[in-house]
């Protein structure tokens, strides 16, 4: 836990991070409110979206089979991957067969989860991240700190420095100059790429469509220019019909970026483009475990809008890297607690259980309850001796609180203890690090019960 505490302290003390997060998230949340205010009945829309996702995930296998058949009939190669190892093999074989030595990769969280960039490099191809934010992160040799805005933790000045040092660009602090400069340098990579790799937002079983949502045009470049297009996506992205995708498309851009619609929504047909080879890799990587994990199946409903991160009071202060897992924020914490419980033990503390994430979620995932469930699971995995101690302490507390006399005695005992050993208690609290963030309040001069009965006697209460 001290590791997490140190991380949090470092993040809180990082003025640059605080400035970057404060500015970006204030803007995101203001846009979100405006975008949602245009809709007449947001709760009904969210109910419908949640229902669509529940049904789609509930009959995932049947839908995936239909989707696979549609694509195969149209000439697209569909590959199934249990985990990152399978994906690595497929990528190696695709690169070998098509003699791929230059790849452009569009932002995909599944890709982050699987270490896709490294897999492509291992297959002997250079790989350039084509999303502006991801390219900055790649040059900085960092990991993304947000699902939608990978470099949200960096200020323009930080970006300018990174691009100057590693991207061979003149130093600037102007976001427009930096973004356009990157776009210009990326253009040559697109035109010379042999393979484009992207994720997908939705897969449509009925028609075999692949839906990708973006603003920059890098995903469009990735499937329009190179002769090989690979889609790497989670199995849970499946939807029954295009009408279902339409409804989710009314919510996704609004929640993600505060837009009515993103600049580009590509609805790819099931067939590859003439003269192009297309592969669709359907990735499990623990999703089937979530499917069978009772209430945790709800996590598969996520449409990766990132709104839960934007509204989370903890994320707003510490950013995404503090969570130490691919997916940061509330959705990441809940997923990690199920898929990588050992890694998630610490990040489970980065939640106040305020419920803001569950409230904003467009598909009604009860994130706070799932994090609480994660905590219970983590507790069950702790050492028996630690659990015994905690249980004993709570038993004493329950006894003290559950009787009038015992409650009074504990109250007086607490006061006397503080009066006699206050210094020692403070020293102990200091040692345990309890006073790091705030001072312990002084006891009130009067007990609440004494004050209450005094008011009654004076006749203040009727």
């Amino acid at each position, binding site marked *: 836990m001290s590791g997490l505490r140190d991380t949090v302290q470092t993040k809180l003390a990082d003025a640059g991070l605080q400035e970057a997060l404060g500015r970006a998230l204030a803007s995101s949340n203001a846009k979100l409110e405006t975008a949602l205010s245009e809709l007449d009945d947001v709760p009904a829309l969210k109910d419908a979206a949640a229902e669509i996702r529940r*049904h789609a995930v509930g009959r995932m296998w049947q839908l995936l089979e239909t989707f696979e058949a549609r694509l195969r009939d149209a000439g697209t190669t569909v590959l199934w991957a249990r985990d990152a190892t399978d994906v690595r093999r497929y990528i190696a074989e695709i690169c070998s067969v098509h003699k791929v030595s230059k790849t452009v990769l569009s932002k995909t969280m599944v890709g982050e989860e699987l270490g896709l960039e490294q897999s492509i490099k291992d297959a002997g191809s250079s790989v350039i991240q084509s999303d502006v934010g991801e390219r900055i992160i790649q040059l900085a040799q960092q990991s993304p700190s947000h699902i939608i805005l990978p470099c949200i933790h960096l200020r323009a000045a930080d970006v300018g420095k990174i691009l100057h040092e590693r991207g061979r660009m003149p130093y600037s602090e102007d976001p427009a100059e930096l973004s356009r400069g990157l*776009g210009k340098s990326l253009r040559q990579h697109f035109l010379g790429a042999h393979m484009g790799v992207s994720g997908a937002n939705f897969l449509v079983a009925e028609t075999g469509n692949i839906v990708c949502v973006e603003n*920059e045009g890098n995903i469009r470049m990735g499937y329009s220019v190179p002769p090989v297009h690979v889609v790497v996506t989670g199995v849970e992205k499946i939807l029954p019909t295009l009408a279902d995708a339409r409804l989710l498309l009314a919510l996704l851009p609004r929640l993600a970026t505060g837009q*009515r619609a993103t*600049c580009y929504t590509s609805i790819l047909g099931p067939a590859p483009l003439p003269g192009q080879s297309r592969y669709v890799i359907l990735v*499990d990587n623990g999703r089937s475990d979530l499917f069978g994990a009772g209430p945790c199946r709800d996590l598969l409903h996520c449409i990766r809008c990132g709104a839960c991160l934007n509204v989370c009071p903890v994320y707003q202060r510490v950013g995404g890297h503090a969570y130490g897992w691919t997916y940061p924020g509330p959705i990441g914490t809940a997923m990690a607690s199920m898929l990588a419980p050992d890694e998630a033990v610490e990040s489970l503390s980065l939640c106040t259980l305020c419920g803001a994430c569950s409230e904003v979620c467009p598909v009604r995932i009860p994130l706070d309850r799932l994090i609480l469930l994660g905590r219970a699971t983590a507790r069950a995995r702790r050492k028996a001796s630690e659990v015994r101690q905690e249980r004993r302490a709570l038993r004493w507390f329950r006894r003290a609180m559950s009787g009038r006399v015992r409650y009074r005695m504990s109250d007086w005992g607490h006061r006397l203890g503080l009066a006699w050993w206050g210094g020692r208690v403070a020293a102990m609290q200091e040692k345990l690090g309890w006073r790091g963030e705030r001072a312990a309040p002084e006891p009130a001069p009067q007990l609440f019960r004494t004050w209450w009965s005094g008011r009654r006697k004076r006749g203040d209460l009727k």
Partner: protein
Amino acid sequence: MSDGGRRGSREASFSVAMHNRTRSARAAIRGRLDTAYEGQRPDPPEESYLRPTDQPVPLSDLERFLERLREHQVGYHLVAGAEELAELMANQIYAKRGRKALLDNRGVMLQCRLLGGLRQRLLDVIVEAVGAGLAADQADFGITPCEGLIAETGTIVLAADDRPTLQVSLLPGRHFVVAREAQLVVDLATWMATHPGNGRHHILLSGPSRTADIEKQVVIGVHGPWKVSLFILRDGWEQR
């Protein structure tokens, strides 16, 4: 063995290896999902989900659509006929000192004889149709027809069947779209109902390429065109 033969045998072994791996992965994923079904069978699928209803709007569809275009920073022109369209477009290309323009010459573009109209007016500019040799990344202007206009979100629906056509609306710095007023519909649901999935690739375009990755500051024109202009042929344009 010739190069072609070597390549062929490599592809065959590649296919077998890939086939075996994907078959076992598929079976494993199916097995895990089936086990989960046994433990907790999902509710039977319902056919009728709650759908949002289309709300009445105060503005007419066209006015609302044009308002959305302004918000998305998409330029627009309402034109009466083919001659006016060619004249206006040629003036714009000339004013921006365009040197090369590439046309996706289908549908309404053919009906308007836009290629010929532009060539007549722009003698110093190379104006070509897709497939005639001009690469999309060499063109200053990409000119395409569209498949529909959506009032609710200010969206232009593009369609393409091949990579060269897709690139016309993506690689040039400026993108001109030609539409008919009759193509305007209220919302995406209406458009989908009238255009059932036909296997084509569609792009819902709602403004020029943009990013806000650095400090959430919106920057127009990163990978795709930085300027999008829509030319709407008013109803009855064929008679003019």
